[in-house]
């Protein structure tokens, strides 16, 4: 059963990666998807990142209350948590929920209302037409989105640290620069590209092959979010093992 699903998913990707029939239409769709899948998520991603950054700072400050431990470690721990794990992995899981259900339900609705059949009988490669712009949009835009999340997360930590008085501004700023490794950002963005790939393609798979009516589209969207999240968690572990160990 799982092998059949993986095989069908691989065959879907084969069709998705074909050359677009009309490059001009592909680029029009690409920019539309950048807006739908990326730009519209900036607000929520920014909001979550800012406050989680603040929460991480408070929790770290509480756990580093020992006067022998330098306060700069609060900023250091915050930036490490945000860059290595929170922004790339947890924001991607949040995106899997928002964007994944959107992709699965829009493509699924097109399937049950015969819009995909209409594309096929016109001679349009429906998988390529519908999925490739989403995939390219996610893979190219999400690293940018995650970079915004990293910045706002760290900024949120600084604001909350200052407001609560748990960490002085100069300690926090010293901490975020303390043994800063640019490879951490590279590692996070590599992970993001892989996660973006799954966020675009797994929901597309569930939407494209849905059978039935609106109830099944709803179920497909739920399945899509579950399996995208599971894939992100597993790939996160594999990539971490490969890149950091």
């Amino acid at each position, binding site marked *: 059963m799982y092998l059949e699903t993986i095989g069908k998913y691989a065959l879907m990707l084969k069709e998705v990666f074909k050359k677009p*029939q009309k490059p001009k239409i592909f680029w029009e769709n690409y920019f539309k998807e950048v807006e739908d899948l990326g730009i519209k998520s900036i607000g929520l991603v920014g909001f979550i990142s800012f406050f989680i950054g603040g929460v991480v700072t408070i929790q770290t400050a509480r756990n580093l209350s020992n006067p022998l431990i330098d306060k700069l470690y609060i900023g250091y721990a915050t930036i490490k948590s945000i860059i290595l794990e929170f922004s790339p992995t947890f924001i991607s899981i949040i995106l899997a929920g928002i964007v994944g259900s959107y992709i699965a339900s829009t493509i699924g609705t097109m399937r049950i209302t*015969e*819009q995909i059949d*209409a594309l*096929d*009988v*016109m*001679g349009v*490669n429906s998988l390529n037409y519908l999925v490739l712009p989403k995939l390219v949009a996610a893979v190219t835009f999400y690293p940018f989105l995650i970079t915004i999340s990293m910045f706002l997360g760290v900024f949120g930590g600084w604001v909350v640290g200052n407001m609560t008085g748990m960490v002085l501004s100069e300690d926090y700023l010293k901490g975020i620069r303390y043994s800063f490794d640019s490879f951490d950002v590279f590692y996070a963005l590599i992970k993001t590209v892989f996660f973006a790939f799954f966020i675009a393609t797994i929901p597309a798979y569930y939407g494209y092959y849905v059978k039935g009516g609106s109830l099944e589209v709803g179920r497909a969207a739920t399945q899509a979010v579950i399996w995208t999240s599971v894939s992100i968690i597993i790939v996160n572990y594999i990539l971490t093992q490969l890149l950091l160990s």
Partner: protein
Amino acid sequence: MIEVKNLYKSFDGKAVLKGISAVFETGKTNMIIGRSGSGKTVFLKSILGLIKPDKGIISFDGRIWEQMSAEEKRQIRKEVGVVFQGNALFDSMTIEENIKFPMRMFTQLSPEEKKKRVNEVLEQVNLEGVNDKYPAEISGGMQKRVALARAIVLYPKYLFCDEPNSGLDPKTAIIIDNLIHDLTIRYNTTTVINTHDMNSIMEIGEKIILLKDGHKQWEGDKSEIFFTDNPDLNDFVFSSALFKKVKELVQKEGHFD
């Protein structure tokens, strides 16, 4: 001309098409009729390549579907226009964008030429001034006409309509029927219509095929319907009191035209 030979299709061991053969002639409105569940839609979707038959040959003017590459099939599909039962209009596009879509994908026409062609086909289906509306903003009958306009925008050689009258009032249904018939004659298309609407059959049915339980039960034209003793056809066509009466009258007169 579309030829179908010995078409078989099963789903989970249940046979839906059991060796159907048929010829759909060019310049005629060919109709596939039968009760719900008789295999009409599976038959039509098999011809369209949306369902892969288990066995059988389908050819479009001598070009055999099963022997074609994916690219050749895509080329044939550009010669096909389809009106789906639920219209299948792209709901995120306006009416004009829906009709323009095949032209944008497959032609190099200028924006002005595309616009001109959109207005031409909208005029042909008696629907003007709706270019900027979305499918959800117009009635079911209008949506059907838009679907027809989109299907004919590239001058198709083959036109398929799946239940084109479902959900329409009788008057709009007749308008749609006559439109399809006019377009068939004007563009000399091979038109195949899936229906169980008796008014449509009597209005424009030039060649009729009755399906029952996955078999072809009867084939003929609309005038022959009144004089056949095929029990399945009589049971399907003349089930209402009105059509029983019409049959009696036609048989008394000895002809239907």
